[in-house]
């Protein structure tokens, strides 16, 4: 019962805070519209919003898939090959420092204005959290376990696959959680550079046409789906790693 009520109460509180901000600060409706106006805009345009949401959700899903795969593979390569660590790690870090608006036009030029460039942008943004978390996890294996394995005659490959990877799975899970949280940003940023569909496109379009209510309605829809996706991924990861304790002391009493 509480698990359904709690999110509703949180949402109600946030809407209340929003309305209070509007009452107190006298901000004009074309900069921050009131919740009622946004709700009305959502109701009037919900077909359009949900249509665009579908496109963005597809970009997020594919970006997560490719980003996670590439991230995991890179981390494994870095953990297994010493030259890779020396040469690839700086490139990995640099890839995150490049502002996206510089890369996005290049991606669009190579991959066109269809969904491929948006998925590539999302993949780029998702790739780093997954790669670094997994790589850290692989590096930080308990020394006791690695020593024991070596005394038992394990090769580098067996050490990696039987000891390091399973021990690093919780770290990978953490990376995936972060990736899921930033995936919507990746998809939307990709859309800003050149798209004809998607919530990012809808937000820009509404902003240019001074339909701020619609812009916020699309924004909130994106936030809603982002939260849903996060909880799905989080639950899935918890089920996949049942042996990893992840409860804090007070929760264990429940």
């Amino acid at each position, binding site marked *: 019962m509480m698990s359904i009520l709690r999110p509703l109460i949180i949402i109600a509180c946030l809407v209340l805070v929003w309305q209070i901000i509007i009452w107190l600060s006298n901000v*004009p409706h*074309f900069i921050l519209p009131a919740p009622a106006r946004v709700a009305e805009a959502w109701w009037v345009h919900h077909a359009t919003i949900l249509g665009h949401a579908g496109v963005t959700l597809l970009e997020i899903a594919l970006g997560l898939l490719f980003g996670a795969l590439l991230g995991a593979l890179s981390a494994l390569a870095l953990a297994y090959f010493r030259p890779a660590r020396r040469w690839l790690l700086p490139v990995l870090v640099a890839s995150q420092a490049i502002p996206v608006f510089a890369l996005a036009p290049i991606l669009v*030029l190579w991959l*066109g204005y269809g969904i491929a460039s948006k998925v590539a942008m999302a993949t780029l943004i998702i790739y780093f959290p997954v790669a670094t978390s997994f790589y850290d996890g692989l590096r930080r294996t308990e020394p006791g376990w690695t020593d024991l394995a070596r005394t038992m005659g394990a090769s580098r490959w067996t050490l990696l696959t039987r000891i390091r990877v399973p021990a690093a799975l919780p770290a990978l899970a953490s990376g995936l959680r972060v990736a899921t949280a930033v995936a919507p940003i990746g998809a939307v940023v990709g859309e800003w*550079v*050149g798209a004809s569909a998607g919530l990012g496109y809808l937000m820009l379009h509404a*902003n*240019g046409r001074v339909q701020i209510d619609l812009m916020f309605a699309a924004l909130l829809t994106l936030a809603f789906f982002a939260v849903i996706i996060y909880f799905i991924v989080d639950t899935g990861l918890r089920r996949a790693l049942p042996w990893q304790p992840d409860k804090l002391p007070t929760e264990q009493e429940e």
Partner: protein
Amino acid sequence: MLFTHIRRVLFPALLIFLLGGQAAQANDKLTLLLDWFINPDHAPLFVAQEKGYFAAHGLEVEMIAPADPNDPPKLVAAGKADIALSYQPQLHVQVAAGLPLTRFGTLIATPLNTLLVLEDGPVKSIADLKGRKVGYSIGGFEDALLRAMLARHGLTLDDITLVNVNFSLSPALLAGQVDAVIGAYRNFELNQLAIEGYKGRAFYVEEEGVPSYDELILVANPDHMDRAVLRRFLDALEDGVRYLVNHPDESWELFIRGRAELDDELNRLAWRDTLARFALRPAALDRARYARFAQFMQDQGLIEKALAVEDYATVLE
């Protein structure tokens, strides 16, 4: 006797003269938000600044370039700045959406928007756009403009594919990803193509079925505007336009003074092509022309109802 005279009369007179002079020199401050990064479309403003015309009219104008062209009118409507450079089509939509804005002056009195194609491309006339891809930037009213331009040749928007290329209009056209782009400015993108060694062909929107409009206008919040101060601003701006028209080469030097990053070939070519388009009388208003464009926007479904011109445009006496 003479020394007493100096002490009693001349010194106080001198003091009053100096102090009085200081008080008279307190200039009225204005914040002006440009529509985009500094470019030759803003020439008269910078000429007025550099030649001291604003100071001569007792004004101190701070010009700020925004990152997002949609922000300046909103900020002026919210009372955070005095003047914004905006676009006439956007003004109609903004006022219809309830923003408190009014146009009090014009900077560029002609449209700059064009439908741009490559000279040796497949599109020789607008009718050739059938079945082709047209690139555009979000935030303009490109679909409305295209609808009007296509209608003249018996086409509708369903006969073309619109692709949002978001500001990289020339690269998309050159890379062949689109066959035409709308939203390209005749003084900019056309020259950009020429610099890359390509010849572009421009279809001017006002020649293809769209009523003429002002591309760059000056807007203020009618509830906060100081009409006397803004009138002096327009006087100084008119001085800037006058100097620009009479001395274009000296004006260029003033434009790039202290802004060396603006001194490149594209800006030089754009400068030359923009000179004929500045409003020679920034304060003047042609009501029928504005009403005609408002009617066009209503016919295209961009606004529900064309408002009375007094509701969004004013003449400062």
